[in-house]
């Protein structure tokens, strides 16, 4: 099954917009969760959980590569591709 990156990106941005209560124009793949949106550790924990639930994946607690919205999208795409293989 091919993973559609655009769809995943849209869904990730939807979640970030809703949970962080920011306007959509503030959220692009380059947007950094902590530095640009002011997320704290609890926000990050909640976002990770939302991503896990939305995409039915598991994100390890020590996953440190996810800083921006784009990082999250790439991580999810990779996970889904591996799961599809």
């Amino acid at each position, binding site marked *: 099954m091919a993973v559609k990156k655009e769809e995943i990106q849209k869904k990730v941005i939807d979640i970030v917009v809703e949970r962080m209560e920011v306007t959509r124009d503030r959220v692009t793949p380059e947007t950094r969760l902590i530095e640009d949106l002011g997320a704290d550790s609890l926000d990050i924990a909640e976002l990770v*959980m939302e991503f896990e639930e939305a995409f039915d994946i598991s994100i390890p607690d020590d996953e440190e590569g996810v800083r921006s919205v784009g990082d999250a999208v790439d991580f999810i795409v990779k996970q889904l591709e591996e799961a599809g293989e």
Partner: protein
Amino acid sequence: MSEGRRVVVTGLGIVSPMAPGGPDTWEGIKAGRMAIRRIQGFDTSGHKTKIAGEVDEFGIDRFMSNKDARRLDRYAQFALVSAGEALQDAGVEFEESEGVRAVKGGISAERVGVIFGTGVGGMKEFEEQTCRLVAKGPSRVSPFLIPKLMPNACAGNIAIYWGLKGVSFSASTACASGAHSIGLAADSIMSGRSDMVVTGGCEAPVTPVGVAGFENLGALSSRNEDPETASRPFDKERDGFVIAEGGAALVLEEYEHARNRGAGIYAEFMGYGFTSDAYHITAPDETGEGPARGIRLALEAGKVSVEDVGYLCAHGTSTPYNDKIETLAIKKAFGEEAARKIPVSSIKSMLGHSLGAAGAIEAAICCYAMRDGVIPPTMNYTTPDPECDLDYVPNAAREADLKVVLSTSLGFGGHNACIVLKRI
């Protein structure tokens, strides 16, 4: 103790099922309006109990965004809103100068504390996340669960929001939590450790598990068909309390500090009596000795005589046991003859019983009562009970020149807390 430090009430805030805010809640109580209704917050079809005192829109958005409010359980939202109203009512503003936060025209924020009570804490959040655990597994339990359910989240969030850096903790003594918090807050000021403390109590127990727990304990009224008459303290036909939610905050302040910044003063906090029944975890000691000692200790601490007491704001839950034993305790404390001369009423007849919030709501109402010279009524009083034979101010508010009032709170666990306030 720093001898001579006096404590006054300079601000009030209430979140109640009656109306938004302290002034409108007081107006409703003076008019004898009922705030009990069929539960709207959840589906009660499986519950025996279908009535409660529920809070409608209470304006959390005046203080924080949705995103921030989602981090607080409903119970702590009540605390935050009532505390905000009380600080505004007290005319307290803050300023920062060279990194030091202080009350405008007053002391450093390091001398301002928060002592806030709750009987249970974040029950709603705990229930919702427990359901998620069962339905979806542990990995789906919210990271906000712990910071929302913890019973000190009320005090912690008030301190964080207002930048209050002095003493800060929560007291938990079931239905006496509010009164205990107020007494401890006054202590902190009298002893010289604080100059101002935001205190009070809050509770949001009208949840599926909360209501089921209390109904299975046999504590709740079964008058589902007539919600407005269900809470009937001291009446012979009473059959249990009506569970309710809410919160109230008082700004307590050292007298000279309040005067120097030109604050309005509702009342002086005179003293308290804290005792324990040391008897049973839910049932009161039938001798009434625990609350009677509490009342006597409060009068002694407040240096007021029995004749000075113009009104006793009773715990008066509307359970068969409480009202009978509280009546006995009042008679033991004052003596039969003197007790019959003191007006005693229960505002729970209108608001229901909001557990850890109740003592704080009642203390705030006592302040309004003294200011306006009006004693709140006990509504739904129709059939006298030979075992409850005091003046309960039945069914209509009464004008009276009130100088000293006493408020009693009696909690599961045998915790008794009585406080004395005086008009100055």
